[in-house]
């Protein structure tokens, strides 16, 4: 078999690692690009090398076996991949991606590209969220896994979704005092969805166990709440919330960890030219892919949370599946039974995912609950009121227009953080569904690029093109 160029994988999380493993098994030597210093991705993120003593069991809890397996899988193929850690893929043009590693930029041509770029927290503001001491769930988990520290001494957990209970539980295990778990989902909704979760008894059992453990340790677990604000002057001093009956409560704490799910990291797919479609489950525009992970662009493949939130187990399966698709496209004979098996398990997870969504529904009145003076885009200081204004006076009926007029998403994050919020707010103000306001177009660079980046490309290539005067 001949691949014109080595396949390139962006992302060394569960998806990227399993994809690499499969390609290596077929005799290829893929390039694996990852921004992080060590492989593992978000969930199986490894602490920095050296001097870090918390055992894996403490870091990954129930998932220690999986974490270890994924880490080992990569270690086993380490010599047979061109692994490039601490390397950001900051741009993609047809047939090549641009990399930045230690201040040096390089262009890497590809014929086959697997994007396994994963996800980050979906940040949905509430009053006071910019106070020091307020963290995302993911952020607080990273602090625990990566830095070995908690975000506070007495932490309130807020939001909804399985991660809420998981991270709370991890904090409990780490010996941190919990002010409470405040779930926006009403208890009845969760109870009703529990039946569906029997599809995956292990996960259900874990979920129930988390809740049971939290309660057993006297941690208040409240359902159907609405956040009012994170209160405090210098930093968070309390979480103020409404219970299901609308009564206000004030829970003292020195940190809040909050999250309403994850958002896929899709910029590279966008720059690669992939077609997007709105995904109702993720409330987001995602790159289109077939069941095997082929995107709408020949030679570009998608796997893992970067193309739709499905969790770590799905990411592993999808990584392997997409590698098989790639091999198939190269003309390789692949194990059809294995492909069917992977497809079957992936669709099982997808079905379970629907149940989880039912158990932890997105609070779609969220956008109504925030006051006009709540900061939506913190880079540019854009408030909810400003966005509502451009929506209501008819000037902005879609996201890119709102960005142009208000500067939301124009700062360092370029909408990666505030984009989801802006979409929620704008669509609510306009009375459309979240799919009704379009999506922010990605522009390079994916993350801020130091100007000092060494430039290896020959100068003057653009010739007279550089002589424009504006």
């Amino acid at each position: 078999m001949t691949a014109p160029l080595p396949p390139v994988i962006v992302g060394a999380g569960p998806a990227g690692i399993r994809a690499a493993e499969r390609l290596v098994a077929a005799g290829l030597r893929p390039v694996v690009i990852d921004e992080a210093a060590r492989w593992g991705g978000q969930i199986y993120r490894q602490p920095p090398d050296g001097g870090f003593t918390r055992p894996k069991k403490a870091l990954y809890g129930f998932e220690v076996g999986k974490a270890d397996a994924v880490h080992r899988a990569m270690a086993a193929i380490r010599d047979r991949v061109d692994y490039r850690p601490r390397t950001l893929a900051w741009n993609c043009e047809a047939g090549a991606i641009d990399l930045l590693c230690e201040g040096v930029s390089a262009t890497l041509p590809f014929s086959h590209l697997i994007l396994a770029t994963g996800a980050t927290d979906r940040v949905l503001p509430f009053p006071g969220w910019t106070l020091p001491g307020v963290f995302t769930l993911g952020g607080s988990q990273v602090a625990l896994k990566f830095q070995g520290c908690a975000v506070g001494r007495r932490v309130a957990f807020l939001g909804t979704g399985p991660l809420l209970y998981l991270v709370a539980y991890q904090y409990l295990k780490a010996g941190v005092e919990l002010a409470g778990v405040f779930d926006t989902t009403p208890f009845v909704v969760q109870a009703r969805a529990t039946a569906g979760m029997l599809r995956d008894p292990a996960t259900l059992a874990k979920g129930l166990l988390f809740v049971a453990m939290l309660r057993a340790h006297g941690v208040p677990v409240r359902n159907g709440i609405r956040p009012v604000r994170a209160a405090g002057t210098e930093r968070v001093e309390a979480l103020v919330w409404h219970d299901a009956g609308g009564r206000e409560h004030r829970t003292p704490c020195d940190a809040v960890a909050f999250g309403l799910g994850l958002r896929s990291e899709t910029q590279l797919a966008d720059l690669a030219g992939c077609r997007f479609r709105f995904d109702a489950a993720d409330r987001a525009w995602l790159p289109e892919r077939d069941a095997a992970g082929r995107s709408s662009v020949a030679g570009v493949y998608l796997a893992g949370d970067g193309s739709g939130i499905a969790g770590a187990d799905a990411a592993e399966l999808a990584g392997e599946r997409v590698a098989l698709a790639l091999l198939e496209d190269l003309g390789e004979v692949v194990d059809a039974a294995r492909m069917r098996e992977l497809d079957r398990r992936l669709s099982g997870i997808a079905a379970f995912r629907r149940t989880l969504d039912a158990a932890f529904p997105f609070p779609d009145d969220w956008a109504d609950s925030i006051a006009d003076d709540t900061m939506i885009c913190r880079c540019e200081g854009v408030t909810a009121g400003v966005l509502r204004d451009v929506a209501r006076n008819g000037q902005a009926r879609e996201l890119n227009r709102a960005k142009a007029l208000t500067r939301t998403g124009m700062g360092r994050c370029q909408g990666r953080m505030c984009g989801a919020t802006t979409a929620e707010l704008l669509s609510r103000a306009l009375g459309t569904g979240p799919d009704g306001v379009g999506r922010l177009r990605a522009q390079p660079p994916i993350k801020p690029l130091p100007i000092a980046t060494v430039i290896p490309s020959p100068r003057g290539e653009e010739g007279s093109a550089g002589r424009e005067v504006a």
Partner: protein
Amino acid sequence: MRERIDCDVAIVGGGIVGGSAALFLRQAGLSVTLLERDWCGAKASGVNFGGVRRQGRPLEQLPLSQRAHAIWGRLPELLGTDVEYIRSGHLKLARSDADLDSLVAYRERTGGFGLGLEIIAGEEFRQRWPALGDRAVGGSLCPEDGHANPRLVSPAFARAAAALGADVREQTPVDRVEKDGDRFVLLAGDALEVRARFLLNTAGAWSLRVAEAFGETVPLESLHPNMAVTEPLPRFLDVNIGVEGGGVYGRQVPRGNMVVGGGRGFALDADRARPQRHAVMTLMQDAAELFPQLRHAHVIRCWTGVEGYTPDRNPVIGPSRTTPGLFHAFGFSGAGFQIGPGVGQTLAELVTTGTTAMPLEPFRIDRFPPIA
């Protein structure tokens, strides 16, 4: 059911040219329908560098450019909103004595236009712009040139026109134009039919589609100037900077971000373009060379736009040579933002009076040899 609109003037394209024409036509009391495929000001007019500069333009553009200058001066009153327009001065740098000579020569040639150009060199130059270090031997300052925020300016023109009663239809691509007797007929799919006595072709890089429907053409190509912007930085630059001979240009916006431009992007398709990697790198390097303050800054976004360029880099402005009642204004070749409102006003004048004092000869549509 197809909606039908009858009006005096139909305009294809809601960029700064079409938007300002609509505004001035409404001020003159004509009924106007403006058809915009995307959102008004979403294309070149809304994504450009934001340079509002007369300095450096070919002489034949200066009368229009001066006319535009007067309009820019009363922008808040015209548009009823702040569009971050600042008469910061436009400083064109000379990196060599030869470049300085050519700036001096430009000042001589344009003496009659009242641009007020000041040549500043040597010690005085270094004292006035220490931030530019020793990057240049001197420069030419046009004190009343400056910059504005194109994202705000260009949609505001169409909005102001609408506020005066223009029928502005966004998300409405015109896919057929023809003339039926003394009326132009414009079709936007099955939804809309517009009939008008006059037709303005201000469709930017896509204007040939309209011109060709009336048997006219020009060698127009689409090009894509590369732009980049840094994170906000401490204020170090108040003037809009260009360089004699071209290359990089830059301005610092009130928020502190530095916007720089240079080189070209590439087309994704007929409607969209993307910055080009090598041009972006070259731009970053050139910018850091010119503005040492950028050496430790980060670029947070690059972008480009789609703009029509002619071989002589002058626009096509004026009456059609085949079809009475049709007026063109396109092909601004990367420099239509400043001049745009002056062009809009001139188009309105042509429609209402049939004539203009602006010398439009250099911009005739038939100035290029016929394309085989």
